[in-house]
């Protein structure tokens, strides 16, 4: 039995790294009386897996993790038990019990929906000005770090959809990012490319990952947590 858990990683904890978040979740699980499955061996621990690591500094609204269980409990029970012990900036949004044959989350991930908020200032307006041109172009080359090193990469193909909204106080960029063979695109790299286009060195913004996506057997984009259990 496994529990597919959707949680929010809020603004105050957006600077916590992936391993630290993992340890925090393990400790939170230990504080509950939930029937968690421990690994065997010399140093028993809870083998958590996350759908996709979140870049440091990005707020996660619907992050997804997979928790091994030793007995069946309902998603609602799990959610309640966790929210009793988690700080208010880390909340379980929903939980769903799945069978052991459910695919690993990592294998399911196809992309994500992100939102970038910029408070209105001269730099933010420059970014807003160049965004439509960026969406119209087919190519936008910038320096991108991957496991195999730093490369000049055309990042435009990562953006499946993009929109811009400018209100009186902020500019909001929304994108659907699709993963490609060599991985995903970090919001920071997108912003760096937009800054280069805008001819500015940097801009202040807050990035949110709104949802981690997968494709259902019919090929439609859905939240990774909604993937059907066989």
């Amino acid at each position, binding site marked *: 039995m496994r529990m597919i858990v959707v949680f929010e990683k809020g603004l105050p*904890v957006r600077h916590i790294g992936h391993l*630290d978040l993992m340890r925090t979740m393990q400790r939170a699980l230990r504080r509950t009386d939930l029937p968690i499955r421990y690994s065997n061996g010399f140093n028993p621990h809870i083998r958590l897996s996350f759908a996709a690591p979140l870049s440091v500094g990005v707020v996660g609204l619907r992050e997804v993790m997979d928790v091994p269980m030793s007995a069946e409990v309902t998603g609602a029970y799990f959610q309640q038990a966790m929210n009793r012990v988690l700080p208010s900036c880390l909340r379980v949004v929903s939980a769903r019990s799945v069978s052991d044959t459910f695919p690993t989350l990592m294998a399911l991930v196809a992309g994500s929906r992100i939102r970038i908020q910029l408070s209105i200032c001269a730099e933010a307006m420059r970014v807003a000005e160049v965004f439509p041109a960026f969406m119209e172009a087919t190519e936008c080359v910038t320096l991108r770090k991957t496991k195999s090193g730093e490369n000049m990469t055309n990042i435009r193909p990562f953006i499946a959809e993009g929109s811009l909204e400018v209100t009186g106080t902020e500019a909001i960029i929304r994108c659907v990012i699709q993963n490609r063979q060599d991985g995903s695109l970090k919001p920071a790299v997108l912003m760096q490319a937009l800054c280069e286009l805008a001819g500015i060195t940097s801009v202040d913004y807050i990035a949110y990952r709104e949802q981690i996506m997968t494709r259902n057997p019919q090929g439609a984009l859905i939240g990774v947590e909604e993937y059907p259990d066989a």
Partner: protein
Amino acid sequence: MTEQIERLLMRVEKPARYTGSEMNTDVKPISQAEISFAFCFPDTYEVAMSHLGLKILYSIINNLPYAVCERVCMPWVDMLEGMKAENVPLFSLESRTPLHQFDIIGFTLQYEMSFTNILEMLWLGGVPVKAAERGEQDPIVVAGGPCASNPEPLHAFIDAFMIGDGEDVIVEVVSLLNECKKTGVPRAERLRLLAGIQGVYVPSLYTAAYHEDGTLRQFLPIDPAAPETVQKQYVYDMNTTAFPESIPVPYTQIVHDRIMLEIMRGCTRGCRFCQAGMLYRPVRERSVDTLLAQAENLVGSTGYEEISLSSLSSGDYSCLPALCQRLMERFAEKRVSISLPSLRIDSVLKDSLAQTQRVRKSSLTFAPEAGTQRMRDVINKGVTQEDLLSKLKDAFEGGWSSVKLYFMLGLPTETDADLAGIASLGEAAVKAYYAVPKGQRAKGLRVTCSASVFVPKPFTPFQWCAQDSQEEVIRKQRFVRQQFTAIRGASFNWHDPSVSLMEACFATGDRRLSDVLYRAWQLGCKLDGWSEHFKLDVWLQAFTDCGLSPDFYAHRTRQEDELLPWDFIDIGVTKRFLWREYQRALNAQTTRDCRLGCNGCGIERMKGLCSYADDRSV
């Protein structure tokens, strides 16, 4: 301000140091408390959050229905610079309240080299750095902890010091100041009232005068509210005194990222260099039942996977095997491991070792402190070479291959023969390892010998001693290093002696060092505990600018009749006892462990405090 902070966080190293929101820190809103307390730790977040005292006092204050306690740490240089540039005042981790908006600011004094950070934090928090410049609207700045036992170098910056065990005095201080706030008692009167609490020292109510030669001539209260002698506060019963049921659990990895159970306070051994051993007398144990209940609470509220037993000498805890046994039984199912941090080499620990090993194996540390028996007798370290070697043998047979040996260099009466003894012990450790048959010992022998530089500390028998000159320390370090080159399998680490020089000055300094501290801070000193930021030349400049010399403080042997800057504090052990111990040290005479009989240290004056005390020896 929030937006500016968020912007800074995107730019600095380890931003999670500044964001709080950890488990068990969702305390009450600051706006709803009658009185607010900023617990200031004058070092970085990682150091602060490893400190048990912070967690104890944080929980005690937050358990008061009328008070709230939030944490404030020293920002790292990148954040400091950003905050200055953006005009962001130092703020609390919980609610990001600027420091100057708190009613009380409390510093914990763990280390002399963090003193400049106190000045920096006050300044960055918008609080007048000098106590004399604070007005009615400014917070009251208090301080406690081991370095408060000689508060004088900080006297110009702190309104009131708390001396002794903090659990009760902190409540008295907060509650008194809360009453004063309600009725609008003026600042000067609040300080006078504070001076009436046992253990509280208000430096502005005292005056010091000096002889021609720079030594203290007179130290007296100038206000009837101030006692001539400040009596420290004691916790009498460790089973009933407050201990947190829940503690903050940091997200990022800190130095001691685990549950620390304080199994006892104090130590019966009487090592003559050890300030903690003298300050925290007498030994007071917690019962196994109390500890089990505390562990149970903390495991439940934190989810930590490790418990460490904390005290000055955990191996001396009277029920250690039973405690380990019961902790392990209780928490096996929760997969919580138990570790003993400060193993004493002369404690009967073989059983416990075998048990800790079942859970987790870490590197073992031993503290022989000196290389020869004569030297160990001088410092009253009741450990023999045979003890040490038999413990090492146990460790190597038990599967350990990495051991650390701690020494001190520059001890009173030390000769080159004593220094050579350090290397001989290192060599003996290597031999002990090879004496275990090859199949039975773990691979990868590592014997690491480290020598710190002796620093004379107030309220120890060595408080009268001079520290070796810098040249002499360097010569000695070279000498020992030379000896180690011939030993394979053992390495030797040493410390920068210039830091120890400043430690000696500020440990044993008088009021005039406040000026030096202020000057050094003005010249840019901060984060001096971090070697990359320590600048000896700037410190020497500050001394010169103030017309003072480090030699006077660090390199001078004091006379029996000299009035010492901390003599007005009754810390428990008497000056008479300390002098007697000093004389015995000079003759290499040892003094027995208190468990074998009372030595009349002065604690016996406090009826019912010391379980080994012999009241007739008064």
